[in-house]
C-alpha cells in the first residue's frame, strides 16, 4: 500500500557538515506515497528509483524517511533540593553503536553557560554540570537576553525548599513591559505584582528545570544526517538494472533497510 522514492545518485557538497546533514545520497529514501501513486517525470531514473510494497502502509513507512537527529537526555546525578542545587549529566541518545554523533562539550557548553550552569566537564559519553536554581533564574538563557545583568537586578524574596517555589523581584531597565511579562509567562512564572520597573513573580523549581532542558534541547539539537535509514548501493543498482522500479514484500523491504544508528 506504499511506494517509497529513493535517491539513485549522490548529491554532494564540499562542506562536510552540509554534505552529511543535507545531501541525499544514493539509497536514501525521500518521500512515501500511497500505492498506485503517479510519479513525476523526474521522479524516475536517473535520479530516483521506486520501491513498491503492498504489505506496508504509508504511515508505517514514515519512520524510514526520518532524519538522524540529536536527542539529548538528562540524568540528575545528585541533588541538594533544599538549596536548589543539582548535578546533571546530558548525553545524546542518538549516537550510533560506533559512537558517531556522541555529544561533545563544544555542542552544549555555550548554552549551558548561558543558563548559568557551572562546573561543566566532558567525560564520554556525557557532559556533566552543576545547575543552581538561583543562578539559572538570573541567567541570559532564562530571560532570553544577552547580558541580562546589564538590564536587570534580582532579589530572592523567599524559597520554600519543600514546595520548590521561589518568589523573586526583578528590577528591569530598558526592556519593554510586555517583553518582561511575556518572558515571565513563557518561563512558567506567575506574576504576583508589578509596579514601575519592578516585577515580583513566583516560579516552581521543576518548571525551571523542565524549561532549561527543553531550551537546551531546542537550541543545540541538530540534524546529524539527512536520513537515518537507507538501502545499499548494491540494492539500488539491482533496482536500476530492473528498470528503476521494484516490488518487494514487507520482509524483503525490512531486510534491505539499514539503520545508521545500529552501525
Amino acid at each position, binding site marked *: 500500500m506504499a511506494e517509497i522514492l529513493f535517491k539513485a545518485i549522490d548529491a554532494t557538497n*564540499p562542506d562536510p557538515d552540509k554534505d552529511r546533514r543535507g*545531501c541525499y545520497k544514493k539509497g536514501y529514501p525521500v518521500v512515501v506515497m500511497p500505492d498506485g501513486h503517479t510519479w513525476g517525470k523526474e*521522479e524516475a531514473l536517473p535520479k530516483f528509483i521506486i520501491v513498491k510494497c503492498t504489505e506496508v502502509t504509508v504511515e508505517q513507512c514514515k519512520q524510514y524517511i526520518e532524519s538522524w537527529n540529536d536527542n539529548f537526555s538528562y540524568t540528575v546525578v545528585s541533588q541538594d533540593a533544599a538549596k536548589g542545587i543539582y548535578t546533571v549529566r546530558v548525553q545524546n541518545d542518538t549516537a550510533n553503536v560506533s559512537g558517531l554523533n556522541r555529544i561533545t562539550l563544544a555542542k552544549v557548553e555555550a548554552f549551558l553557560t548561558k543558563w548559568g550552569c557551572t562546573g561543566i566537564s566532558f567525560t564520554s559519553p556525557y557532559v556533566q554540570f552543576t545547575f543552581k536554581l538561583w543562578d539559572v533564574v538570573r541567567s541570559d538563557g532564562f530571560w532570553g537576553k544577552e547580558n541580562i545583568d546589564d538590564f536587570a537586578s534580582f532579589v530572592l524574596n523567599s524559597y520554600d525548599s519543600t514546595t520548590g517555589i521561589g518568589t523573586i523581584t526583578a528590577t528591569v531597565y530598558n526592556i519593554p513591559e510586555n517583553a518582561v511579562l511575556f518572558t515571565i509567562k513563557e518561563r512558567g512564572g506567575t506574576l504576583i505584582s508589578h509596579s514601575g520597573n519592578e516585577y515580583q513573580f513566583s516560579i516552581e523549581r521543576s518548571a525551571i528545570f523542565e524549561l532549561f532542558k527543553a531550551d537546551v534541547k531546542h537550541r543545540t539539537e541538530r540534524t546529524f544526517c*539527512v536520513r537515518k535509514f537507507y538501502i545499499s548501493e548494491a540494492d539500488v543498482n539491482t533496482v536500476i538494472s530492473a528498470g528503476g522500479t521494484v516490488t518487494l514484500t514487507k520482509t524483503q523491504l525490512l531486510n534491505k533497510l539499514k539503520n545508521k544508528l545500529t552501525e
Partner: protein
Amino acid sequence: MANKTVTVKTSGGDYTSLAAAVTGEQLDLVTNTRILTIECYSLKDTATVSIDGYTTSSSYYIKITSPVGQRHLGIWNTGKYYLEPASGHPITIKEQNVTIEFLQISALDTNTAQYCIFDYISDANATIKIKNNIFKGPVVDSTPNSRGVYLYLSAATCVWYIYNNLFITFSGSAIVQDTYANQKLYAYNNTIVNSYRGFVRSTGDFIAINNLLASIGFTSYTYVGTFFTGSDYNASDNDDNIGIGGHNRVSQTFTFVGASDYHLNAADAGAIGYGVSDPGSGLFSDDIDGETRTGTWDCGADQHAAAVAKQDIGFLRKYKHYLRR
C-alpha cells in the same frame, strides 16, 4: 548551465511533492550558474520540506513559487497548491538564498508546535524573501505555540524580507525573531488576523512597516519587544503600540470583505490609505494578489483599489476575486 524551472503537479509534472523537487534538484547553483525555480501547481502536499545541501548566492538562488493562474487570490483556497504536513515544520530553510512566494502553508498540528517557515540557517550572509504567501495556524490559543515564520538561527549578516503575507490563526505568533537570531528582518505590509500574538522580537533588528494586526488573542502581545528604528505605519485594532514611529495607529476598526476574506472592504476606515508608499525602497510594488499598488499604500497585505476613488469602486473590489475565478 542555464536556469532551470521544474514543476510540482499531481500528474504530468516533474515532481509530485515539493520535498522531492528540492531533493532531486540539489546542486551547486553557483558553479552551475543556475537560478532554480520550482513551480507548485494545484495539489495538497503533505511532505515536510528541508531546503539544504545546495550552494547558492545572491545571483544563483532557489525560488519556490506558484505560477500565474495557479496562485491563491489572497484567500485560503484548497483548490490551489497548499503544503499541509500532519506534523513537522512545513518548510525548514537551511540555505542562504531562497525566495518563497505565492504558496499556502498550514501548521495544523494541535499537539506539537509547527512553524510554517523555520529558519535554520547556520551560514552567514543569507538573503531570504518570504512574500505573498498565506500561512495558517491551528487555533487561537497559547498552545501549542505554532508560528508563521520563526527566525531561529540566522546570524547578523543575514537579511530576511517578509512582505505581503497573510497570517491566520496562529496559536503562538505570526513572526518571531528569537533570542539567538541576530539577523535584520524587514516585515512590510503583512496582515495578521486571529493569532495569539503578533510580532515577537528578541535580539536582532526587526523593522516593521505598514503591517495590519487584527484580533490578536493576547492583546498586549500584539508587539513584543523593542523594535528597530524605522518601524512605523503599523495598524492594530487594540491599544498595544509598537513603541517606535509617529504614524502607527492603534484601536482601529478594520473592515474586511468577508469572514475568511481579509481583503480590505471599501468601508474600511482603519487601514486604507494609512501606510507609507514604497517602504522597501523599490523592493516590491504589488500586493498579496500580485496587483500593483498605486497611490498611498494601505496597511496590510491587500491594497484596496488604488489610484481610483475608493468608495466609487469599492463594490468592484469586493467582487474582483469572484470575477477572476
